[in-house]
Each structure stands twice: as structure tokens, then as C-alpha cells.
């Protein structure tokens, strides 16, 4: 899973030559053997490295504040989203929905790596969500649809049909 995400990111960054990865441990943590340095371990670490190599530092945030926010959401992705149970997911969606209420992207008005990896991570959840639930977490759904249509991001994931109109207006049906 993580390796496919990294290869999709490479494609997004326009890298011609694909890197070779291996995995480590039970949780299949990705490892990148760097040519001129120690190996890089972990999804977020490798992703940040790839963004820098591609000379796209803005993907990590261009102010000190947005850099911090991006790191925070990347951290959230691997420490919270990736290990959450079916019951937890509702809390995650609720929190995320509230957070995205007044934002286009996770870091505000700018597309970053945080959007990419939260999108990859939350995709299986959104696929399984009933239309009524998608409507309930309407900000998450809006953001998700926006990211999946963002040029060059989706790659290995199937598109999710998202309704543009609300169909559940009353709370009783």
C-alpha cells in the first residue's frame, strides 16, 4: 500500500526514473536506499525527501506555520488514521469535517503533501461510506472530491462518485 502511494507520488512529481523500495518489519514500513547516504525509513520521511529532490518544497508548506501544519497532518495520517478501528473512524471523520469547514486544503489555501497522503489514507474509508454518511461529512467529501480530481494525484486509486447536490434534507429519512 505504502509503496504504491510512493510510486504515485513519484508520478505526480514527474520523476522519470522510479526509485527502488524495500519494506521492513511486520508493518511493512517502506525503506528507500539512497545512493549517497543512509537509507530513509518511513512513509512520511521518504515522501518529504522526494518532494525536496523534485525541487517542490512548497509541497511541504511555504511558511513556518504551514510547514508545521503539513507535518502535523502527515503525522496524523500515519499515527491516527492508519491504525484506527471502525468505531474510531467516526471520530476521525467528524474532526476532519469540522477542521475542513473553512478550508480548501488541509494547510489552508495551498495544496500540499498533507492533502495527498490524507487522500490516499482515507480513500478506503470514503469508498465504503454510504451516500447518506458522505453527505453528513460534507466538508470531507468536498475536499476528497477536489483532491481526487487534482491533476496527477489519483493514479492507483479508483475514482469515487460524489454527488454535488444534497439529497438527504430532512433528518428523518
Amino acid at each position, binding site marked *: 500500500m505504502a509503496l504504491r502511494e510512493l510510486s504515485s507520488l513519484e508520478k505526480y512529481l514527474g520523476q522519470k526514473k522510479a526509485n527502488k523500495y524495500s519494506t521492513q518489519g511486520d508493518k511493512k514500513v517502506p525503506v528507500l536506499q539512497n545512493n549517497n547516504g543512509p537509507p530513509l525509513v518511513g512513509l512520511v520521511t521518504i515522501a518529504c525527501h522526494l518532494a525536496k529532490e523534485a525541487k517542490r518544497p512548497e509541497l511541504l508548506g511555504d511558511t513556518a506555520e504551514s510547514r508545521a501544519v503539513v507535518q502535523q497532518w502527515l503525522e496524523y495520517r500515519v499515527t491516527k488514521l492508519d491504525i484506527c478501528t471502525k468505531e474510531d473512524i467516526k471520530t476521525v471523520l467528524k474532526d476532519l469535517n469540522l477542521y475542513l469547514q473553512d478550508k480548501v486544503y488541509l494547510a489552508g489555501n495551498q495544496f500540499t503533501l498533507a492533502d495527498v497522503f490524507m487522500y490516499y489514507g482515507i480513500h478506503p474509508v470514503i469508498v465504503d461510506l454510504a*451516500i447518506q454518511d458522505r453527505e453528513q461529512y460534507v466538508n470531507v467529501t468536498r475536499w476528497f472530491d477536489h483532491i481526487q480530481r487534482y491533476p496527477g494525484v489519483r493514479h492507483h486509486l479508483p475514482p469515487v*462518485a460524489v454527488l454535488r*447536490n*444534497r*439529497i438527504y*434534507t430532512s433528518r*428523518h*429519512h
Partner: protein
Amino acid sequence: MFMLCVSSCFRATEEEQQAQSKKALKKQQKEAEKAAKKAEKQAKMASEQQSAEEDDFAKDRYGVSAMVQSQQKLDRELVRVQNLTPEKADQLIWLRARVHTSRAKGKQCFLVLRQQQFNVQALVAVGDRASKQMVKFAANITKESIVDVEATVRKVEQKIESCSQQDVELHVERIFVISQAEPRLPLQLEDAVRPDGEGEEEGRATVNQDTRLDNRVIDLRTTTSQAVFRLQSGVCQLFRDTLTKKGFVEIQTPKIISAASEGGANVFTVSYFKTSAFLAQSPQLYKQMCICADFDKVFCVGPVFRAEDSNTHRHLTEFVGLDIEMAFNYHYHEVIDSITDTMVQIFKGLRDNFQTEIQTVNKQFPSEPFKFLEPTLRLEYTEAVAMLREAGVEMGDEDDLSTPNEKLLGRLVKEKYDTDFYVLDKYPLAVRPFYTMPDPSNPKYSNSYDMFMRGEEILSGAQRVHDAQLLTERAIHHQIDLEKIKAYIDSFRYGAPPHGGGGIGLERVCMLYLGLHNVRQTSMFPRDPKRLTP
């Protein structure tokens, strides 16, 4: 008297006591004391009552009436609670009602008197018409007892919010109990009409559905139930009136039948002398035979049985079917138009004549008003599948609609066309019964249709095969024993007009019109796989 009793008790049991343990002795002693105390209390009450009776000037103005055995024909007009309006102010009237609640406060006792879905406040106050004892008597009448009351109607300054008759109250002059209710009720009416979630903070009780259904007689007294079943009666009446006006004939069909009409799986078997019979799943075969017998347009209101073991919010094992069958000239859409127009007339009739009932139900179960279009929206099955696919549902062209997809489609249609009622036409032939006419332009589809209210199916219908040859072929295709449906097939051999029809579930129509969540709420004595009583 107290001492006497105790000592006699001791003496009578002295010998037995020797054999008993000390513990038992103590217990007995306690019991004896209890009995004595009780006797004392009773005596005290009796003496009080006696003394009270002596100086009660109003003792003829209240009491428990003798059982009504039709001893006398009283020339007394009983006024209906709903007619208690300010126009009746200062009149002395009689009425019969139930005691909904009573609340005593010093020298006054407030009663809420209820008659069906209407109620009014009544007041018994100590004065020249009522004595202290009468007020006490009124306060002690058990809830749900039926009383005859003579009272003066008085206008009130401030509206009484808790009653349906807000502008007047009754000043009671006489009150007689006609039928006394037991003091303990299996459920409280106020608890049964409380909207979901309300009163949760105060820790008030709500009554769950099984308790309601177990004590259906009491539950049916609630304003909500009263409104639901008045509206249901309205649906039947509007159905009959509309169809009669269109030239339909009402027929009665047997419910004990020799063969299952739509697939053998969900049919009840009953023993019938030396053989067995089935309970009709629909009057299908009979209404078709009536068409062959030149009745042209028929309808039928009666019980329908399904032995489906499904415990869902919308399945019953016995329900009331409103069935229609009619001959048409050239296209079965003539039938659809006729049925949808009937439904629209019902919706309009309910909207115009049952507003009070709808609002009463809405108080407990809020829902959006029911919306429909004129003429009724008709979608083809392929269009519906396309709409669902667009919303991300994966399904095959000829798959039947699952319940969640049905509901989702209802929401999509509502959003696009703003209607809660629509027809879905041209179902795949494979998912319909054997007597369904195939579509002439595409044999995978059929001339059949379902109608939906708020995204749930209420009617299933189709053009029927009126050709004995094709009917036999379809029956063989569905592996039906031809011997058992011989009479049915034979009826088409002697000239049968093209015809179509459909069957509606009365309970579902009421449930979905009112936006309720469970079909048991609109069935007076529901039958499901787990319930056979009351």
C-alpha cells in the same frame, strides 16, 4: 378492637408455635401486627367516611353509577368534547369522557377529560355546588375511568395550552363514574405520545413498541394512534370513492385458495378437511378471472397473507391489500394513469380533509409534508439504473433493486424532481411473476411497474398475459405445476381482454404518507413472524 384481634390470633396458634422455630414466631407476630394495623386503618377510614357522609350536602352529585344495563332511557344530550367552544359559554351541559389526568390542589381538583383525540380541562372546586368530599372523590377517580359529567362551560382568560379545547373549561356540577379503570395502567398515555428524544433530560420514560403492541387497546387511545387510524380509514374511503367514480366494481374474493399465486415459497398452508389449502397472497387470480368475466374494471379491499419470515420495519404477515385490475384498450399505460390518478386523489383528499390528523401525528413523529406531481412522474427502469450508477452504485442491468438502493433512488428522485411519489416502469422480466407480459421491443424487460412513496415500494403491478398459450409457456419457464393453475389458465381460453392492475398495501401507504418508520404503527393489530396477539 386492636388488642382483641392480636390476642385472639396468639391464642389460636399457640399449640402450633411450640413446634415452630423462634424465627417463624417472630414473623408471625409481625404479620399479626400488620393485619391489626390494617384493620385499624380501615376502621378509621370507614368511620371517617361515615361521618363525612352524614354532613355531605353534595352526596347526590357524585358517585359510582350502577352498571349501565339499559334500565332507563334518559332524555339527556351528551355534548362532544370537540364541540366545546366559546359559543357554548355559560351553558349547562352533560358529557361522557375519560379521565385523562387529575390533579388535586387543596380545595380544587383539575381534571383533563378526554374523548378520542380531543380533551378539555374540568374543574371541581369546593363551593355551593361541590363539597369537600366531592372534590376528594373526583381526585381519587383512577386515570382512564369513564365518567359522566354535568358542568357549566366557562370561557378562560388564558388559553389552556395542554388541551385541544383551549378557550373554555368546565365547572363541574355533578360527576359520576360509569366505568372504573384499574389503578395501575400497563403504560402511561403521556409516555406513549412523547416524541423521540424529548424528555430524555428529565429522565422521563418512553414506551417501546413491543409494550405498546402488547397493550394495544390502551396505546390505540393515544391522540397519535387515533389520528393514524382515522387517516387510514380515510385512505380506504378515498380509494373506494375515486374508483367507484371511475366506473370500477368492488368485488370480494376467497382468501382460502388451492394454489399459490406468486411463487410457492411465502405462502401459508392451512389444513382443509382431508387436503391442504393456502391463504391468498393476493386476489391476483380472482380479479383477473373477473376481467375475463366482463367486469371490465374491478377493485378489492381485503386481507392478504405473506409467510415471509422477514422481521423488518415494513413487512407484515397479514395486511390489507387494495387491489385494482382493469381491462385497457391498446397500451398498459392506460392502467398506470388510472392507478396514479387514484393515488393522487387519495393524497389530495388526505391533504385537504385530514390536516388535523396529519398535524397530530407530526407532533410525535415530525416529517416533511408529502409531495407529489401531477401528472405523476414515470421513470423507466434503465433510467433509474443510470441514476444510481451516476451516484456510484454498482449494479447489473437486470438486477432487482435492493432495499437500500430503492431508498437511495427515492432520495435522488426527490432531489431531481421534488416528488415523494413516482412510478418505475419496465422492470426486467426475470424479477417479475410468471403472468407478467414481456416487453414487445426488448424481451429482457416487461410491461411491469412499481410505485414508490418516500423511496419505498407501495404497489407492484403489470400488464398480465391474457393469452393462454403464452401464459402456459411462462408458467413452464417458472416451473409452476400446470395442473394446479388449470382453472386460471383456462379462463383465458374463451376470449380475454388485455388487462393490467396492481396491489397496494394499505398499511404501507399510511406509514409512508405520514413519514412513520414502522408499518406496525399503521396496523391496528399487527401480525408478523413473532406476533400473533393481541
